[in-house]
């Protein structure tokens, strides 16, 4: 930069140089002009300087006597009051990104100092695309080094529709609808949905009222569906003739005389209405981009193609239902897209609020345990357990003014997608309940509900219906003033009869037990990988997929993870029996983890392999809450060198798991109690051993086969002594071969599990005859 003084010096130098040139013979007009300019600049500067020198003393002269007068006549004036401290929440749009937060004061969006806002009671909520739940947040070790969390980037890319689960770029127009798997869309994606649907004329032409007039649409199997359509064609022809005869133009106006005709007319009218509704549903799915050509859906048919499209729709709208047009799905189909998008936005914000504020209470206690939904406060008064998630969400929506779909559209219209790269807003939430703190006395309780130990088929080989009156539930309690306050009550799973690979390479049934008693969660793993036991049926470990232009079988890494489809879901808590007197913990391989198989959590006929499955978003919330309110150590990524080969359909598959996930160790661990539940049926103890599946072919009889209890390599030494070396297990012959008069060979040969504690009857058992 050139200073003013420098310029003046340059000018003078130039002037001197020019004066010197006057003596030169080649003095020209250009030089004359230069002299003129320089003289004018010098004169100008001189005048300016002179005016400064003249003005200053005059002003002083004017003020001096006045000042003297004032000091004589009046006492010295009070020093002017100090300027009021600047408003800590004043707008500061020039703050660096890391130090700023956006707050909404009286409807005005204001960028303020982050620290000042937090001190003023605002809670920071990340509305940007860089958000992950607590379990995937960036963590540093004691030396300040950033710890690698392998799944964090994948989580962000999946939420932002950048890549698929394997990290490959997503195809154009392809979308990740992963809310049911615990990965909500990013705010940028939410913005796209709102703006796209707002401009769509296609979606505006749909008759939502017509869709809402039907509660559900019946799916029939292919043959039955064809029969039904044929029948309706015949009815239509018949009524066409009759209407022509009676000179009636509409079937509604036609009054049949016989009872049979009345029945047929009613059926045909219902069918016609169903077809009209189906046409609107097809339009809805098509406008929303769910009707892929590859689904090969035929118009007006309830076929597999439609099911695939419905599944996409359900995943987009987080509907936990089978791929039928059932109640919840139909209700959502009949809701205009602005409202469904608003519901999605609320869900997205809920996860962010839960993550930022460390709350968990979602109203499930009021719904499932109404008798226990109060606690005694400090003042001795009974207080209700609040639905904090709902309360806080409403606060956020009203503060940001996005509590209606129209307002949300306006919110997104006024902000471009770059705004959501980093967008932290401050919200003043209602105060937390008094039992909240940095160290909460938590306890997890799992009620197994109705338990059946009986083999799930009869002696003749028929499937046996085992009704579960009470489904397993998980409750998280906090201890406060000698009372256990339930915070959540969520559905979960227990183990049951599952397929298992025998040592001879054939698949049998085995009872996979969910152990009862006191445990602790010492380890929480985010983005965990599941090491398949050697007894896992191999068909589950192989997946057919497209690889670089060729369809081939590959190792099913989806099931192993890390990923939302992993057997352990997005996060897992490892149950162990704490070791006493310096002995190591006993790990019975039971975990409470997220699961992509969310329908198994609601299904009466589905069981886990012994673990307690949770919906992925529940697992993410639960373990995030534990990390927020309990002391823990961040151990970071746990590398692994696990490798295994197996043979399946004359090809070898090699599994390689490079990491076990991102590990947190709870200190102290969180206690867990697994309740016995109600044992139904004649069988009161679990059956050990492998059971042949009726109808399957097996090699010749073998009396005793050693079962290798699979454990990951690093845990083999920690295994309970009783399991070391494997327990000799009988393979029980198919009950089909057993003479019907005698008692089942299954029950005779298979020995009851003596390792578990004797289970007292909590309810009179109900015999199998009941089914």
């Amino acid at each position: 930069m050139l200073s003013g003084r420098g310029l003046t010096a340059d000018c003078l130098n130039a002037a001197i140089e020019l004066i010197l040139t006057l003596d030169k013979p080649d003095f020209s007009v250009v030089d004359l002009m230069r002299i003129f300019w320089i003289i004018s600049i010098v004169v100008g500067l001189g005048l300016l300087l002179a005016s400064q020198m003249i003005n200053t003393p005059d002003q002083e002269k004017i003020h001096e006597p006045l000042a003297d007068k004032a000091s004589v006549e009046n006492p010295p004036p009070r020093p002017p009051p100090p300027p009021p401290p600047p408003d800590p929440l004043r707008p500061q749009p020039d703050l660096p990104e890391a130090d700023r937060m956006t707050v909404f004061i009286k409807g005005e969006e204001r960028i303020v100092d982050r620290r000042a806002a937090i001190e003023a009671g605002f809670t920071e909520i990340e509305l940007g695309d860089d958000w992950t739940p607590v379990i995937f947040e960036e963590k540093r070790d004691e030396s300040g080094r950033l710890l690698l969390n392998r799944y964090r980037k994948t989580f962000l890319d999946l939420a932002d529709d950048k890549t698929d689960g394997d990290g490959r770029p997503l195809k154009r127009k392809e979308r990740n609808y992963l809310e049911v798997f615990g990965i909500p869309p990013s705010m940028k994606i939410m913005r796209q949905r709102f703006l796209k649907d707002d401009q769509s004329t296609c979606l505006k032409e749909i008759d939502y009222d017509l869709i809402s007039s039907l509660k559900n649409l019946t799916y029939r199997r292919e043959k039955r569906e064809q029969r039904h359509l044929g029948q309706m064609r015949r009815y239509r022809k018949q009524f066409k003739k009759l209407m022509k005869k009676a000179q009636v133009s509409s079937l509604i106006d036609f009054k049949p005389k016989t009872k049979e005709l009345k029945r047929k007319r009613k059926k045909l009218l219902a069918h016609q209405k169903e077809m009209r509704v189906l046409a609107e549903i097809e339009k809805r799915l098509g406008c929303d981009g769910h009707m892929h050509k590859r689904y090969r859906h035929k118009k007006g048919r309830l076929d597999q193609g439609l099911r695939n499209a419905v599944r996409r729709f359900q995943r987009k709208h987080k509907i936990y239902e089978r791929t039928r047009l059932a109640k919840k799905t139909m209700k959502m189909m009949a809701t205009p897209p602005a409202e469904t998008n608003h519901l999605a936005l609320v869900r997205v914000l809920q996860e962010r609020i839960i993550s930022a504020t460390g709350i968990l209470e979602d109203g499930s206690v009021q719904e499932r345990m109404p008798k226990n939904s109060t606690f005694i406060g400090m003042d001795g008064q009974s207080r209700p357990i609040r639905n904090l998630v709902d309360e806080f969400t409403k606060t956020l929506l009203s503060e940001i003014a996005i509590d209606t779909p129209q307002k949300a559209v306006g919110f997104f219209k006024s902000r471009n997608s770059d705004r959501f790269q980093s967008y932290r807003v401050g919200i003043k939430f209602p105060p937390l309940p008094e039992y909240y703190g940095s160290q909460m006395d938590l306890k997890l309780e799992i009620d197994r509900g109705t338990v059946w130990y009986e083999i799930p088929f009869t002696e003749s080989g028929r499937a046996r219906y085992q009704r579960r009156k009470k489904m397993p539930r998980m409750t998280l309690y906090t201890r406060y003033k000698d009372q256990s306050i339930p915070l959540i009550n969520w559905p979960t799973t227990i183990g049951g009869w599952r397929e298992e690979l025998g040592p001879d390479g054939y698949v049998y049934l085995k009872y996979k037990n969910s152990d009862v008693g006191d445990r602790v969660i010492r380890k929480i793993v985010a983005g965990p990988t599941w090491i398949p036991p050697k007894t896992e049926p191999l068909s589950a470990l192989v997946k057919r997929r497209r690889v670089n232009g060729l369809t081939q079988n590959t190792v099913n890494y989806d099931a192993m993870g890390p990923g939302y489809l992993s057997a352990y879901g997005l996060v897992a808590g490892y149950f162990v029996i704490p070791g006493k007197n310096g002995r190591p913990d006993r790990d019975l391989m039971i975990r409470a983890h997220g699961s992509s198989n969310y329908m198994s959590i609601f299904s009466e006929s589905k069981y886990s392999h012994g673990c307690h499955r949770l919906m992925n978003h529940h697992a993410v919330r639960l373990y995030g809450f534990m990390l927020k309110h309990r002391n823990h150590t961040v151990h970071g990524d746990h590398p692994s060198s696990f490798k295994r080969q197996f043979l399946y359909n004359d090809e070898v598959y090699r599994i390689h798991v490079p990491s076990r996930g991102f590990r947190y160790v709870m200190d102290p661990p969180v206690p867990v109690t697994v309740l016995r539940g109600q044992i139904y049926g004649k069988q009161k103890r679990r059956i050990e051993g492998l059971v042949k599946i009726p109808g399957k072919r097996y090699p010749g009889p073998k009396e005793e086969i050693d079962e290798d209890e699979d454990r990951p390599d690093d845990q083999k030494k920690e295994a309970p002594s009783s399991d070391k070396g494997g327990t000799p297990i009988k393979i029980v012959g198919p009950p089909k071969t057993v003479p019907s008069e005698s008692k089942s060979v299954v029950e005779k040969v298979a020995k009851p599990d003596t390792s578990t504690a004797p289970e007292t009857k909590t309810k009179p058992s109900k015999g199998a005859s009941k089914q």
Partner: protein
Amino acid sequence: MRYFIIFGIGLGVCLQVSAQAPKPAKATESSAVSTKRVTINFGTSPSGTEAVVTFGKKMLGVVPFSHVFEYDSGPVDVTFRAPGYYPVNTRVFTTKSYLVKVRMTPLDAGQDLLGYKEKLPDDAGVPAEDQPSKSVPKTP
């Protein structure tokens, strides 16, 4: 003097332009990341096996060899094939350079592998697997 003034103006213009231009340092940094590569070495055991490694339709090479992948470009499912051996399917992770050494199993040594099935007798007294039985429970 003239040259001095011209130089001064030029310097000023340069300073102004450089102040307004986007920072090139970040751009070079990101381009360096995008061009980061990993080298995967492929090998087999026993080492003499001349296995061909394919990635879908593309042949990557005959072991031993190395192949360069773009860093973090997603997992690569490869197949090792050698005459007289079971083909081996495995996955390569492109997050670091390392050696993928695969054990090849001769066709007559399948019994050593997990999942090897004994041959069934011709008539085991029950219908064959491909004939679905109605009595099979749907969900055990």
